[in-house]
């Protein structure tokens, strides 16, 4: 019964959407905003990766909201999963030596790779979110391989808070100096250089730390035996 209703509903959705898809031909979209960003992006923001200039400059407010969403998820997950008094903890077996050594060897390399990704976000594909996710996967490896090791809760909280604060404060500095929130008030430099594009790399580094520590703390909270 439930299945039939569900399938009927899905057919309605499918028919409705395919009707409106006729107006959006694949391969030749109407791109007013996108065209503008491609044409003016380098001149106005100094970032050669246009996606980055959209994410961190033209639509930086969305990105601020997005890191907030992740922050909420990390905090909410902590609030839901914090062990109440009296819950027992299970013991875990240590991993084998090969796994242990392998994880410890790989971990710094993963960190460097993640950092590289978010520092070069304005030049090449990648950025704060991707780099942060890679760093978090490094922590995941540590949790799986070296089970007695934990990142300190304090350090991860600090990185979360500071990352978010740097983002907001840079935005407010733009308001102070130029009258617009999140204005790119630093010199743009020459395109394709590491030190270019004004506030974009700074914000992406802050996002990288924030996303990395938040995803790591989400994994930490989930994995904790409570």
């Amino acid at each position, binding site marked *: 019964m439930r299945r039939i209703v569900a399938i009927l509903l*899905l057919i309605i959705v499918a028919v409705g959407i395919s009707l409106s898809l006729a107006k959006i031909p694949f391969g030749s979209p109407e791109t007013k905003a996108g065209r503008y960003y491609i044409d003016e992006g380098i001149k106005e923001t100094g970032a050669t990766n246009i996606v980055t200039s959209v994410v961190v400059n033209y639509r930086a407010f969305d990105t601020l909201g997005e890191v907030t969403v992740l922050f909420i998820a990390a905090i909410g997950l902590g609030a839901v999963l914090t062990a109440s008094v009296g819950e027992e903890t299970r013991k875990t077996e240590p991993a084998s030596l090969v796994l242990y050594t392998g994880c410890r060897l790989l971990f710094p390399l993963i960190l460097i790779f993640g950092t590289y990704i978010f520092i070069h976000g304005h030049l090449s594909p990648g950025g704060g979110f991707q780099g942060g996710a890679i760093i978090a996967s490094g922590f995941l490896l540590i949790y799986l391989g070296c089970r007695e090791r934990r990142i300190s809760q304090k350090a991860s909280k600090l990185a979360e808070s500071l990352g978010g604060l740097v983002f907001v404060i840079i935005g407010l500095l733009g308001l102070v100096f130029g009258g617009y929130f999140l204005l790119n008030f630093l010199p743009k430099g020459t395109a394709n250089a590491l030190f270019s594009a004004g506030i974009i790399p700074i914000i992406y580094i802050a996002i990288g730390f924030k996303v990395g520590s938040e995803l790591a703390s989400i994994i930490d909270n989930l994995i904790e035996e409570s």
Partner: protein
Amino acid sequence: MSFLNNYIYYTGAFGLILVGLYIILVKHNLIKVIIGLGILDTGVNLFLISVGYITKGTAPIFSRPGIDSEHMVDPVPQALVLTAIVIGIAVLALALSLAIRLYQHYGTLNLRKIREQRW
């Protein structure tokens, strides 16, 4: 052939959306429903990216000077999808933590059984 050329990505995206919705509507296991939410998200993201594609386009990155900007794909949907992916994992993580708590309270993840034994 021209149907494939024009609609294959849309087909994939809406296939995922429909399968995701089907899982959410029909399945009783909470973890499975959450997986359905994940599949639904992926479908929506694929749809958004396909909306911005330009035939024979290139990525919107000026990695070396003198790249033809005429055929660059639209960067805006890509920015939107980056946002949507992160929001998606935030919702999934919160949902999983709720699922773990729910299991501790009820000893099952079957939503129908949970509905029967509440209060």
